[in-house]
């Protein structure tokens, strides 16, 4: 048998082995988010059916699938955004860093602080650019103008927005273009020092150039963060994903490395979906 020289992922993450460790050539990957038998009902409709999934840390996981398959519902359950909606019933377990986040004792702000959310349309807060970035740190008790300024600068540099806004940090965030606002939202999310970045079709409202910038940012930050993206664009998933989850009608059909899922899909549905058989 020949020796494989390229850092190829040899053992796939499978649904049956939720806490499996993956060897990725040089270093091992740890599970960051573990979903166990997750079922979500909205107004009695069974939206997510028995989802089992392990999302490894420090990588980009894309959730793909046709509209209405439950991608967003799944993503939002990661930081308990369904909490305020009384129509939503959640059964099953969700572990972040090995900690069950759906217990009664879990402090929801603590969970959310671990995750930055990037929505489909950027939603800047009604305040200045700099206040937007430091809103999170301020909430969590960081004080002192110098310190906050440094945080803002650091995160704005990280998302490549610093040079564009450094002269107008005090102007309202709503004056930025939509692509800039999305990067601002990412900076705002990063400023709370999360471990996970959740993106809900984060680039779908943006022009190609802005969306490329955001994509590249995801790739840059994946060394430090676990990135989970819901995306409609297969090409985006192909470009940036390390792992891909394919969902259909509320079920997780297939989960695996990007290479495995795109090039050697096991399931017939996956095969059809990625070849554009249905949408």
């Amino acid at each position: 048998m020949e020796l494989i020289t390229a850092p190829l992922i040899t053992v796939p993450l499978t649904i049956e082995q939720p806490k499996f460790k993956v060897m990725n050539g040089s270093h091992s990957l740890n599970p960051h988010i573990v979903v166990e038998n997750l079922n979500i009902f909205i107004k009695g409709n069974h939206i997510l059916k028995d989802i089992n999934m392990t999302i490894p840390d420090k990588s980009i996981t894309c959730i793909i699938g046709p509209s209405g398959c439950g991608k967003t519902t799944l993503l939002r359950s990661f930081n308990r955004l369904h909490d305020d909606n009384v129509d939503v019933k959640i059964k099953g377990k969700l572990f972040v860093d090995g900690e069950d986040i759906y217990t009664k004792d879990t402090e929801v702000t603590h969970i959310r602080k671990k995750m930055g959310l990037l929505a489909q349309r950027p939603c800047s807060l009604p305040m200045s650019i700099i206040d937007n970035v430091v809103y999170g740190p301020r909430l969590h008790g960081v004080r002192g103008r110098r310190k906050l300024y440094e945080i803002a600068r650091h995160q704005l540099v990280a998302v490549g927005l610093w040079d564009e806004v450094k002269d107008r940090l005090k102007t309202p965030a709503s004056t930025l273009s939509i692509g800039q606002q999305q990067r601002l939202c990412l900076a705002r999310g990063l400023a709370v020092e999360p471990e996970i970045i959740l993106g809900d079709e984060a680039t779908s409202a943006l022009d190609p150039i802005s969306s490329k910038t955001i994509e590249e940012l995801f790739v840059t930050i994946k060394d430090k963060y676990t990135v989970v993206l819901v995306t409609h664009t297969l090409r985006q998933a192909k470009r940036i994903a390390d792992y891909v989850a394919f969902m259909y009608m509320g079920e997780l059909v297939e989960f695996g490395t990007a290479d495995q899922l795109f090039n050697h899909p096991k399931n017939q549905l996956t095969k059809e979906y990625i070849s554009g058989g249905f949408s």
Partner: protein
Amino acid sequence: MNTKKLEEKIFKGLMIGSSLLIFGVLLYILYIIIKKGLPSLSWEMISQIPSGGFYLGKEGGILNAIMGSLYLIFFSVVISLLISVPVVMYLNFTLRKKSRFSAFARLTFDVLFGIPSIVYGAFGFTIMIFFGLQASLFGGIIAVSLLIIPVMIRSIDEVAILIPVELIEATKSLGATNYETIKVIVRQLLPGISTAVLLSVGRGIGDGATVLFTAGYTDSIPTSLTQPTATLPLAIFFQLSSPIEEVQNRAYSAALILTVIILMLSFSARYFSRRFSKNKI
């Protein structure tokens, strides 16, 4: 000419015509109160309280009514804001947007909005009797608050409905608690709130019927909440019903003062809300 073009012309004419009509009426009102009120408007009118023979056309001014109206509206607006903002927050962000209760509550506010001010006056009066209060600044404040709370709730609600869910989720996903989220929402609502204040000041300060029984009328400026107070609408009303022409003309100058106060408040509120929204939103 074809019918489409004719149709277009008719409707355009209708739009321009009705706008001009409304504008004309406004100008005519201003013309009347300026023409009749300006000659008897003097520094004395706005700097003095009525002296002995004021209602017979002698010296004095209506400072009592000016101050009374300002006190009344100031406290009423503060009280109404303290009640309306939480109500709107509850309707929009605690209840589900389309729950049956919120629909019912909105209907209730619409009904309250439509209740004539004299009814609020009478209602306030019964409450005062029940608590053994006499016509006073306090009574007036309560009645005027009752009058303007529905105005405020409805106009803040109009803007609150438009707040995107994403804003709430964005703040929450940064780890904000409900209270902290509401602070951000209020910030987003500020232009709406300032419009609401403006509308309610306009409605509250110019209303005579609510304060007729509840605030009473007096020639002095109230120094405590339990004293009765004069108000500009009633000053106009009492002077206009006088048979003496000089006193009647003073009613017009009181009307002019009232109009100027309202205009000043509107312009300054608009100016500040614009400045504020430029900086913050």
